[in-house]
């Protein structure tokens, strides 16, 4: 059977398509159909010829097979150090083989490759920084995912996720109306506690255009309110767009490059329309990577930058604390052992290690912040990056992958883990659920909100006065 009804080479373009695929519980039929999916070898080989150029060709050719990448990979470390988990082996036995065979590979090979691409690499790019030749296997796995997606070999959840971006311009079925309504409603809930707090939608020429993760709208609406309150207290002139508010991209995890472009362009259109001075994104790693780091290239921008300066939430927060827009009440600082999760997507891959540490210096009582080892750009993936968290088929592999972070956290002795990244936050929540090590985990917004020294005029007036 060439193309299945659920598992095929066509991306999902309609809401009905999403509903149909979602109705196939855990993708049972989808994965069954995948076993019979044909490979379009000509298309695969043509794509490779057009896209594997200098950089990747050289990477694959000059790899000295020295194995120095092995220890850099947390998945190698945590899976019994089996040689099949060595990054160089993982990419050469998959992408390398496809190229060697000029695209003429079997269905079984492609299904095995799918497992390697999504369950044996989180595209954290750590190995790239440990290779003497500068071979970044994570980048090659990102590329390989694109080839697999083209051929229909993509995990069920990510096919749905990429479809969501095509249909809703969001990673979930959250419409623009849902977004605006939820944001306004959540902010209203806090009007009494924070008089004057409001969210202005589609305001032109604001200083900040704020973008979010659709999960916040659907599952964690408190996060939206917290963002609004913090902007309000900081006295920021900010807005949210009614369209183009979603910063994330499951399409990036899926390797659906066309959907990546559609998604990121929706955000850039909002920038062009509202002309804010800056965009600030929420506490999410891959969202930042997708919209700020990789997005400009998907959208064909030769300067490699979004239309307006775009920063991560931690950069905004560090700046607000530095400039005194937000003041921390020293008596409310964190006074228990606390550690910090460095998100691969904006620490290793966008150089923000100092911003998060600057924040820690404001919100943690001196002596209580304990660094993980290793940390900063050398930190390990949370264990759930690159879409790993969301793939049911690979849940047991993902749970195994969490052990690295668990042990890193245990070694710090910290009872609280600050994770300013949705993916890391989820992974750390799951590792607590799975391994019960007795920790708490948090984004920055709720923590900072609780320890603010709020100016008198922003506090609610006492009715007796």
């Amino acid at each position, binding site marked *: 059977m060439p193309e299945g009804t659920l598992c095929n080479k066509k991306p999902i373009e309609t809401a009905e398509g999403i509903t149909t695929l979602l109705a196939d519980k855990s993708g049972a039929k989808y994965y069954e159909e995948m076993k019979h999916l044909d490979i379009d070898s000509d298309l695969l080989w043509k794509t490779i010829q057009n896209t594997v150029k*200098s950089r990747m060709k050289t990477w694959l*050719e000059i790899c000295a097979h020295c194995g120095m990448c092995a220890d850099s990979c947390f998945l190698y470390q945590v899976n019994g150090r089996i*040689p099949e988990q060595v990054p160089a*082996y993982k990419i050469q036995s998959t992408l390398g083989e496809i190229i060697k065979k000029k695209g003429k590979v079997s269905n079984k090979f492609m299904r095995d490759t799918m497992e390697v691409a999504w369950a044996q690499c989180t595209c954290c790019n750590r190995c790239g920084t440990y290779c003497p*030749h500068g071979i970044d296997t994570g980048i090659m796995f990102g590329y390989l995912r694109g080839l697999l997606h083209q051929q229909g070999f993509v995990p069920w959840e990510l096919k749905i996720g990429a479809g969501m971006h095509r249909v809703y311009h969001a990673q979930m079925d959250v419409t623009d109306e849902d977004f605006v309504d939820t944001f306004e409603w959540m902010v209203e809930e806090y009007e009494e506690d924070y008089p004057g707090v409001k969210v202005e939608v589609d305001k032109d020429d604001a200083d900040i255009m704020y973008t979010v993760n659709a999960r916040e709208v659907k599952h964690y609406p408190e996060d939206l309110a917290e963002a609004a309150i913090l902007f309000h207290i900081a006295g920021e002139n900010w807005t949210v767009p009614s369209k183009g508010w979603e910063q994330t991209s499951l399409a990036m995890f899926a390797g659906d490059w066309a959907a990546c472009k559609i998604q990121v362009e929706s955000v850039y259109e909002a920038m062009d329309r509202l002309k804010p001075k800056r965009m600030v994104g929420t506490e999410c790693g891959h969202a930042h990577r997708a919209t700020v*780091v990789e997005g400009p290239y998907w959208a064909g921008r*030769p300067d490699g930058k979004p239309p307006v300066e775009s920063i991560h939430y931690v950069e905004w927060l560090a700046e607000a604390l530095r400039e005194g827009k937000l003041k921390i009440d020293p008596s409310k600082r964190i006074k228990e052992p606390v550690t910090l999760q460095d998100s691969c997507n904006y620490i290793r891959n966008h*150089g923000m290690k100092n911003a998060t540490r600057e924040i820690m210096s404001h919100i943690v009582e001196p002596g209580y912040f304990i660094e993980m080892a290793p940390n900063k750009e050398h930190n390990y993936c949370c264990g759930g990056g690159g879409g790993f968290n969301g793939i049911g088929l690979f849940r047991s592999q993902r749970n195994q992958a969490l052990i690295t972070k668990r042990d890193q956290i245990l070694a710090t002795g910290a009872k609280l883990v600050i994770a300013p990244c949705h993916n890391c936050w989820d992974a750390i929540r799951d590792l607590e659920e799975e391994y019960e090590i007795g920790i708490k985990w948090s984004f920055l917004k709720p923590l900072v909100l609780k320890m603010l020294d709020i100016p008198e005029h922003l506090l609610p007036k006492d009715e007796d006065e």
Partner: protein
Amino acid sequence: MYEILTGPVFYLALGVCIIGMIVRFVLYFKGLSWQLDRVAYKAYPGAGFKGAVRSIYKWLIPYGTYGWRTQPVMAFAFFGFHIGAVFIPLCLIAHNVFLAEKLGFSLFTISTSVADLITWIAVFCLLFLTLRRLVLPEVRILTDRKDWGVLLISLAPFITGLLARYQVGDYTLMLNLHILSGEIVLFAIPFTKLSHVFLFFASRAQLGMDFGIKRGGLKGTKMAW
């Protein structure tokens, strides 16, 4: 035989090596694509250059990177071999006498005792790397016939050179074998993994530009290699 090896074959080998690598070097950089690689090389030449230089320089220093420091024994073997592989062919007195005669110029030279020392270190390190390839499962799984070929080609000039140096066996034969094995290396450089002799700099420069431009460099963060 000696005349042929040190005459036409020598010039041919050197020519193939140099022209081959110039071609590959040029093709490498011409083939970089800002859209495929997702790095805006041309938009930020300054940041790219700085990132590239840093990325090369850090990795050339023994124990200069996290990568080298996390694997100290491997790093020792690596540098032990590569120091010999670079300085012996280029700086040995005998080689420079030969160069001056053939090409009319010579490079700086190292004393015989230093040369002996770094040659022996190189040989032992290469043998250690060979052993490592045989023993460590994470290296063995990657190893293919080409790797053994490259190892053999790289080891041969050292062994034949030492045999000639200590005049073990027939000196003329050893010398001819030594010259031949050196020329095989030159011929092999552009066409095998030995291309890393030059492409190491290209590949490292590329990742350096990536970090220097896209992954934090423009934010003023230097990658701690």
